[in-house]
């Protein structure tokens, strides 16, 4: 009896994210002229998975009570890298994928080194590294171009057995292979503990530095997976500043919608996935309801403002007025 209550309490944010997504997706589908066909599901899944990877990357850093404003730029940089090296024969492509993911992980590791061992504030440190990553991306791809192994790209953005979107299966596999083992490991627990209360975790002998560093590295890895998937999705590499900063922004919104506390230590990367799908659906809804395209950026901005504000208001948690002024 009491066991599942604890479990439910822990998963409340994730379940809330799932509920928001299901509600929004239901409204979207019921107003879509074609209804829920395999095609509609595939498109929605592909776009959702793209943001889901970036949101998971953000989630890992946010869980440690940090924030990664370079996540969109890692996404863009790995997209540009992948458009060079994920081509050719099976062996070449595999090496290219490994290289792209390693590059993403390295970006995350640099952020982690600066924040944890350099003791810099995550906000400014990642804004600056974001500028560096974007600069490198721009050197690699001053103009959109490049290519990708199209067979693999079509397979991963297509459908399995004609029905199931392959991208969802890929995302599920990543969660199963990367996120769940990390969550269960000592390092994963350390990352959570550091986000929840760093002094307490330190006093309890939890390896907070290694835990946080692992979270930043995995964050870079997820952002790299996102960049790789973007290459599969678009067949090109493109160093687009607006796209990078947009993804950073929506990853924060997705994290909040997915029930992850911006103050760290609460939530799960799975919640971020639902948050990402929900965030994507807001954009699609504006399309389905035939909103004037000129109004779309403003409406999306207002939705974003409300979502992050409600998620981040700390006022409700306060029991003592002095807690306002931490």
């Amino acid at each position, binding site marked *: 009896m009491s066991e599942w209550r604890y479990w439910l309490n822990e998963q409340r944010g994730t379940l809330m994210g799932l509920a928001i997504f299901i509600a929004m997706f239901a409204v979207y589908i019921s107003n879509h002229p074609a209804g829920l066909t395999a095609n509609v599901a595939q498109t929605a899944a592909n776009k959702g998975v793209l943001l889901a990877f970036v949101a998971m990357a953000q989630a890992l850093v946010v869980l440690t009570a940090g*924030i990664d*404003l370079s996540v969109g730029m890692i996404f863009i940089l790995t997209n540009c890298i992948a458009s060079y090296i994920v081509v050719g024969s099976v062996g070449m492509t595999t090496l290219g994928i490994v290289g792209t993911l390693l590059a993403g992980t390295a970006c995350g590791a640099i952020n982690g080194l*600066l924040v944890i061992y*350099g*003791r*810099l*504030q995550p*906000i*400014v*440190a990642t*804004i*600056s*590294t*974001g*500028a*560096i990553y*974007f*600069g*490198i*991306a*721009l*050197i690699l791809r*001053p103009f959109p171009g490049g290519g990708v192994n199209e067979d693999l790209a079509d397979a991963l953005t297509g459908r399995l057995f004609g029905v199931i979107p392959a991208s969802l299966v890929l995302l599920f596999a990543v969660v199963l292979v990367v996120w769940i083992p990390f969550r269960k490991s000592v390092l994963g627990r350390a990352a959570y503990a550091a986000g929840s209360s*760093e*002094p307490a975790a*330190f006093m309890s002998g939890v390896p907070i530095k290694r835990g946080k560093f692992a979270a930043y590295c995995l964050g870079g890895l997820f952002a790299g997976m996102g960049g790789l998937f973007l290459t599969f999705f678009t067949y090109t590499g493109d160093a687009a*500043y607006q796209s990078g900063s947009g993804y950073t*922004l929506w990853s*924060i919104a997705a994290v909040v919608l997915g029930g992850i506390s*911006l103050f760290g230590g609460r939530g799960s990367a799975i919640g971020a996935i639902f948050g990402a799908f929900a965030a994507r659906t807001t954009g699609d809804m504006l399309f389905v309801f035939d909103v004037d395209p*000129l*109004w779309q*950026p*403003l*409406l*999306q*901005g*207002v939705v*974003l*403002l409300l979502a*992050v*504000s409600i998620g*981040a*208001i*700390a*006022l409700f948690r*306060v029991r003592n007025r*002095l807690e*306002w*002024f*931490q």
Partner: protein
Amino acid sequence: MSEISDHPAASRARVPAFLRKVDPAVATAFGCIILLLVVGSIYSSNFLSPDYLVQQLKVASFLGITAAGMMLVILLGHIDLSVPWVMTMGAMMACAMAGYGTTGHVLAIPFGVFCGALFGLINGFGVAYLRIPSMIITLATNVVAQGLMVLYTGGFSPQDSAPPAVRWLATGFIIPGVPNAILVWAAVSALMVFLFARTAFGRSVYGIGNSERAAYLSGVNTRWIVMTAFVISGALSAFSGVLVAGYASKAAQSMGDAYLLPSIAAVVLGGTSILGGKGSYLGTIAGVILITLLQSILSVMQMPEAGRQIIYGVVIVSMLLLYGRSPATR
């Protein structure tokens, strides 16, 4: 020199008293400015000519006004990421207002600044009263401002050319040889110095940056001050946007993008602690001039945008590693 450097304490005693008070970060920033000037003058002999330097100061004044607002917010331990589109909005609204005849021309600048202050008010209310992290809400209001401007410019062809008064403020001359933009920056700077050094507001800003809790317990109305600081930051961003519009003689979309990172960099390079509570306005001026000179040298060297982004990032990170580190846990 060698016998002095053996004893740091002794060498410190020999430094004149007025030098001992100098913040090492500010001194480094000024040192870097001189270094850049020397490097630049090797590259091109025009670099030390008065015309060129005045031109640099004029360009620096736009960044300087933005950075003044940014510094106020950073001193509180917060950050304002809504600078890009608040600047653009200030510029566009000022140009739009100028379309309404004589009254419009008179009200153009105040209206642009007012719009910026309004967004600052939203930011400040969210941060101070709703306790939303400043980074989150300013990122979101930036998008809302962008949405508003897309809506405004997309629906019909707007009046986007800057009115004469705005152009005069940015490029005209009251004192021959000194562009008005520099005078405006000097005036804003004088006000900021007065605010920091001579008013209860300025003292409270430093107090809140060090410990908001302690400031609150000492009877400071901390929430009001945090909100006001964001309003000032928004107003200054918009004002700087108006001036940029006057300089370029029109308001354009995404004209503010180039100011977010440099304004943060200028404040940080000037030795203001990103954690809040510590920093001098003189340092921010030094940071602004340093960034402007760096930009100028990079553009003289025909460094592409990519290289500039990387250099910004590297410069900010290395300065942060020198001055901006948090205390160790243990």
